[in-house]
């Protein structure tokens, strides 16, 4: 075998080694440690499956997963419904010279930390907040609405952040779409609505699904927003995980709950990938 051949094979490995090392050090090893921890007894270390069985037998733990899935599904659907028209307007209606500014405005929410954004929403939605003052001030309602410390508040906080994430992914997809598809559809007699439903929407589905998956992952694992805006009136999975750590330091149970959460994300990814065959794209 020639040395040129060896070099040809060695170079790609050399290039990916830092990334592999990083993944090994900061994902694979901690994940294995967490997996092993989840199989042990708190304050003991012996092997057990009880941390997992607790999740399936304790109704309030199970309810945390149900709550998480419900909130995540609502946030994802609402974000998609809001983001698509926004992305379409950005891609199709805003002149190209203004698009850069519009995109910069779209990413502004990412410049603000979760904590600041969530507390800002709390001030907006509170009993004495902007919305209730406006409604009571204009005599539309007599008693302030309960907006803060509810699931509605949690969803609002999440949507504010994720709608822009989805907008960016859908916008990128729309910009990649060749105008010739629409021209061909028009030549064949399709109106704007039919063209959108049968040509544009199917071709931008990968962008929607990638954005929706990112929204799903970030939303289901977030602790801050539901903690601040939800008023702890219903527990989500990240809060349940944190509860195990705070005083009791029950890392095995926290690890088991985190792995269950990760399994749900993996299932979501596999479903997403299989449906859209993005693994072959």
């Amino acid at each position, binding site marked *: 075998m020639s040395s040129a051949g060896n070099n040809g094979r060695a170079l790609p490995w050399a290039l990916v080694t830092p990334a592999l090392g990083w993944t090994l*050090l900061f994902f694979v*090893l*901690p994940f*294995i*440690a967490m997996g*092993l*921890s989840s*199989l*042990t*007894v*708190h*304050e*003991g*270390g*012996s*092997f057990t499956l009880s941390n997992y069985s607790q999740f399936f037998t*304790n*109704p*309030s*733990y199970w*309810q*945390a997963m149900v*709550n998480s899935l419900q909130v995540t599904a609502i946030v994802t659907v609402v974000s998609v419904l809001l983001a698509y028209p926004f992305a379409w307007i950005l891609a199709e209606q805003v002149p190209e010279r203004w698009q850069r500014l519009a995109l910069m405005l779209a990413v502004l929410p990412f410049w603000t930390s979760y904590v600041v954004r969530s*507390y800002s929403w*709390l*001030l907006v939605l*509170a*009993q*004495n907040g902007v919305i209730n003052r406006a409604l009571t001030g204009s005599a539309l309602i007599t008693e302030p609405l*309960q907006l*803060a*410390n509810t699931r509605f508040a949690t969803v609002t906080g999440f949507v504010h952040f994720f709608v822009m994430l989805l907008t960016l992914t859908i916008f990128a997809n729309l910009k990649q779409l060749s105008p010739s598809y629409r021209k061909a559809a028009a030549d064949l007699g399709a109106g704007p609505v039919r063209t959108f439903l049968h040509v544009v929407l199917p071709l931008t589905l990968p962008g929607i699904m990638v954005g929706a998956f990112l929204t799903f992952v970030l939303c289901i694992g977030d602790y801050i927003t539901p*903690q*601040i805006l939800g*008023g*702890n*009136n*219903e*527990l989500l999975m990240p809060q*349940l995980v944190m*509860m*195990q*750590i*705070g*005083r*009791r*330091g*029950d*890392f095995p149970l926290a690890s088991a709950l985190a792995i269950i959460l990760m399994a749900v994300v993996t299932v979501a990814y596999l479903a997403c990938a299989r449906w859209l065959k993005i693994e072959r794209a």
Partner: protein
Amino acid sequence: MSMKSASMNPLSILKSRLRTACAATALLLAAGGIAQAADLNALIWCDHSDPALLQPFEQANNVKVNVKEFEGTGAGLAIVEQSQPGDWDVMVIDSIDVPRGVEKGLFEPLPEDKLPLADMFPQVKMDGSTVVGGKRYGITEKFGYNTIGYNKTKVDPADMQSLASLTSDKYKGKVAIYDYYLPVIGMAALAIGKKTADLTEADLPALKAELLKMKANAKLVGEVTASQTALATGEVDILVGGGEWVTAGLAKENPALDFSIPKEGAVLWSQSLAMFKDSKNKDMALKFIQYIMSPEGQARLATSSCYWGMPSNTKAALTDDQKKVLRFDEQPEFLARAQAYPAPNADLDKKMQDMWTEMLQAK
């Protein structure tokens, strides 16, 4: 299971090695910061990170105090477990949890003759927890009450003299609950006429019923900042589990906020300072503890920007206004009616936390 048998378990060995590898990596990455370091490393709660508290000590002793904040004993002990021996010099910990640190072999006995024990409120020395095997491992530095915090312009202060008001229809939707299960379970125990020190598994159904009644009246269950914000912004008028640590810090901006020790009593919270056995700087660690326990240090700690609380030293150099806000002169009466945090064993603790989880999920 004993430490020995745990160490012989192959799963434990592998787990331990992986944890060590992860911890070593984290420490390697953090090494720059620690190496430049500083002379005293303290694991603390947020009230100790106030520059107004630390700077006088740093200047007087020409040291830099490196602080790392944590919330909850479990999280704090986990940080210690993943550190190298000697990384930390002092730790702030719930007084009732001092024995947990002693059992793990973490703490160094403190020299009682070099600490102002005689100046402390006797009830907050908490010798049952801070003294283990005849040796003092922790000294109470700050205390207060998990009780009823309220806005006296929105509620009838007379109602706040009874825990029964918390579950009354009169205040439905006007209540927030502080999100820490032990003190609020303690308050539920007081409400049903139980002593916090005597709680057993048999009391859990009655405690759960009381907690669910509180939850039915509550608008939110929030951690320190969220519950304080809710009371300050008028989102709620009453905070279950909130005492002077909520109302005292906000007294200047909103003098309508106050707290009561109801007729059934209140739950005494108490935080201690402990020194690590493996500290490489025990002299400075002791100096730090002495500073915190001194009249000047106590006044600064009591009025820390993060939260206010009663200093355990009766000679704390507080101004008259500060003493008034903290209701310093009323302490003997308050202490007489206060009971300690519930101190459940591991099994009961787990059951209490599960009960708390159920309460949070209840509609």
